C-alpha cells in the first residue's frame, strides 16, 4: 500500500489511478485517525479538555466543602430543599462550558485558519470528514465526561461529609450515566452549531449567551417558563436530578431524549450547511 509513496516508479504512469485504494471503511478509519491526531496535536484542544476536568473536579470539592460548612452553620445560605445528589450533579452545568468549547473548536478552528481546504482536499467526501469529526468528538468527550462526572460527584459528596449521598443512593448511577451522555450530546450540538456558523467567536458566543442568558431568562419569564423546559440545557440537567429540580413530567429519560432531539437537529443543520459549502 505504501510502495508508491516514496518510490518514483509510478512516474509517467498516466491514466486512471492504478493504486488500489483502501476500502471505504478503511478511508473512514484513516479520516478518524487523522482527526484524532489533529485534536491531540493542538494545544488549545488539549488545554480545553484538561482545564475542563481540573476545573470541574476543583469546583466539586469547593462547592461540597462550602455547602457542608453552610449546612453545619445552619445559616440559611443553603436552600431548604437541599438534596445532595442534585448538588453533586450541579457541577455538570459548569463542565458543559468546556465541552461546548471543545465541540465548537473542533470545526471552527478549521474554517478560521483556512485549514478546511487542506482537510477537504485530503478527505473530499464531506460526509466522511463530518462523520470523522463527530466520531472523534464523541470518542474524546464521552470518556472524559464519564470520568469527570463520576469523580466530581464523588468528590462533592466526600466534601459534603455527613450531608453527602452515597454512590448507591437512588438516581446516582443513572445520573452519572445521563450526565455523561448529556455532556457528549451538548459537545456534538456545539459542533453542529459551529459547522453551521463557521466562526469560533460566533459559535462560542451563541452557545454561551444561550447558556448564561437566554435559557435562564426564559426560565424566569412566566410566559416562557413552560417552553423553557424543553431547552436542551434545562431538559438535560433536570434529567440528572432527583430532588426539587427534577421535572417529573419529563423525567430523566424524557429529558435526555429532548437533548438527543436538539443534538440531531444541530448536526443536521450543520451538515446541510457543510454539504455544499464553498471553501
Amino acid at each position, binding site marked *: 500500500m505504501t510502495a508508491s509513496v516514496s518510490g518514483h516508479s509510478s*512516474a509517467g504512469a498516466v491514466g486512471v489511478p492504478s493504486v488500489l485504494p483502501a476500502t471505504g471503511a478503511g478511508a473512514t478509519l484513516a479520516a478518524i485517525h487523522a482527526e484524532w491526531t489533529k485534536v491531540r496535536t493542538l494545544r488549545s484542544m488539549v488545554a480545553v479538555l484538561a482545564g475542563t476536568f481540573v476545573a470541574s473536579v476543583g469546583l466539586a470539592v469547593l462547592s461540597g466543602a462550602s455547602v457542608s460548612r453552610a449546612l453545619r452553620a445552619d445559616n440559611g445560605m443553603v436552600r431548604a430543599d437541599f438534596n445532595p445528589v442534585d448538588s453533586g450533579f450541579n457541577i455538570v452545568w459548569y463542565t458543559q462550558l468546556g465541552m461546548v468549547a471543545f465541540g465548537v473548536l473542533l470545526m471552527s478552528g478549521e474554517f478560521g485558519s483556512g485549514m478546511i481546504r487542506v482537510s477537504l482536499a485530503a478527505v473530499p467526501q464531506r460526509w466522511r470528514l463530518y462523520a470523522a469529526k463527530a466520531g472523534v468528538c464523541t470518542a474524546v468527550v464521552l470518556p472524559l465526561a464519564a470520568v469527570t462526572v463520576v469523580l466530581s460527584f464523588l468528590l462533592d459528596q466526600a466534601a459534603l461529609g455527613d450531608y453527602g449521598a452515597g454512590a448507591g443512593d437512588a438516581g446516582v448511577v443513572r445520573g452519572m450515566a445521563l450526565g455523561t451522555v448529556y455532556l457528549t450530546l451538548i459537545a456534538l450540538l456545539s459542533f453542529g452549531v459551529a459547522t453551521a456558523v463557521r466562526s469560533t467567536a460566533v459559535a462560542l458566543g451563541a452557545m454561551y449567551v444561550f447558556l448564561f442568558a437566554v435559557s435562564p431568562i426564559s426560565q424566569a419569564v412566566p410566559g416562557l417558563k413552560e417552553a423553557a423546559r424543553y431547552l436542551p440545557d434545562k431538559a438535560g440537567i433536570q434529567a440528572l436530578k432527583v430532588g426539587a429540580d427534577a421535572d417529573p413530567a419529563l423525567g430523566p429519560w424524557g429529558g435526555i431524549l429532548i437533548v438527543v432531539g436538539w443534538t440531531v437537529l444541530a448536526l443536521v443543520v450543520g451538515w446541510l450547511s457543510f454539504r455544499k459549502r464553498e471553501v
Partner: protein
Amino acid sequence: MWRAWRRRDPRSVIEVQHLTKCYGPTRAVDDLSFVVRPGKVTGFLGPNGAGKSTTLRLLLGLGRPDSGQALLFGKPYRELRDPLRHVGGLLEAKSTQRTRSAYHHLLWLARTHRIPEARVREVLAMVGLEEVAGRRTGGFSLGMEQRLGIAAALLGDPEILLLDEPVNGLDPEGVHWLRTLLKERAAAGRTVLLSSHLMNEMAVTADHLVIIGRGRLLADTSMEDFTSQHCRSVVRIRSYEPQRLCDVLRQAGAGAEEEPGGVLRVTGLESREVAQLARAHHIGYDELAGESTSLEEAFLEMTARAAQFTAGQGAGLDGRGGA
C-alpha cells in the same frame, strides 16, 4: 451518461471543460476549456483576479462549478480514491492552524492516507524545514509556510501537482529549488500545473502556457510558440522633431507612441529601418536603441486587450489592440 462515450485524449490528465463559475454577477471563470498534459510544466498565467485560484479550487473539488467540469484522470476530484496519492495541491500560504507544529500538520495529513511517518520527515527534508519541524506554524514566515504547503502537496508523491502561486514569498534560493524540483518531476513524466501572475517566472519554468484573463482563455500555447509570436522588436528613438517623426513612422506603417523627453517608442520596424526613415526625412536624432519586447510586456498587452474586450462588449466591439 454521454460523458462515458466522449473521446478523451488519454494523455490529458487534467481536463477543464467549459468551466463556468459565478460569484454573484461576476463570472470568475467563464466557459474555460483547456487540457494539461504530463511530462511538462504548464504555467497557468493571468493577472490578479483572472480566475486562476478559482479554477484550481474547482479542480480540487472545493467549490462547485455553475456549469462545465474540472476533471483529473477523467474524474471529478471527489471521485478519486486516495486523492493525495494522485494529486498534490497547494492553494494559499495560510492553511494551517497556528499553534500546531509543521511536523504535526503533515502528520495528520499523512494519517488520512495511511502514509508512514517516515515520509513526513522525508518531505520536510525535501523542502528544507526539518530544523523547524517542531515549531508552531504561527511563527512561520510566508516563505516557510509556502515550503510547508509544498511539502504537503508532495506528501503522497502524486502524479499531478497543482500549485497556486507557489513562488510567493520564497527567497531566490527557494525559487530556484522549486523550479528545479518541478522540472525534474515533469521530466519524470509527471504533470505540473502552477499558477502565477508573473510572466518572467513562467518563462524560466514552464514549457507550456495557459493564459487566462477575466475568467476566459486567452492563449493555450507552448512557451516556444508564445515567445516567437509575441516577442516583437521595439525601437526607442530620441529625435529633435518627435511629432514629425511620429507621423513619418506611422505613414510607413509602424506603430509609434510618444514617451516623455522626445522619445518615440516604435514597433513594427527594425532599428536600421527607423534610422533610414529619419535620415530620408532629414529628422535629426541623438539616440536610437533597439530592444525586443519582454515576454512580460507581451503578456501585459494580451491581458490588457482582454480587459478592453470585456469592457467593450456592451458598447460594440472592435477588437482593437491594447494601449
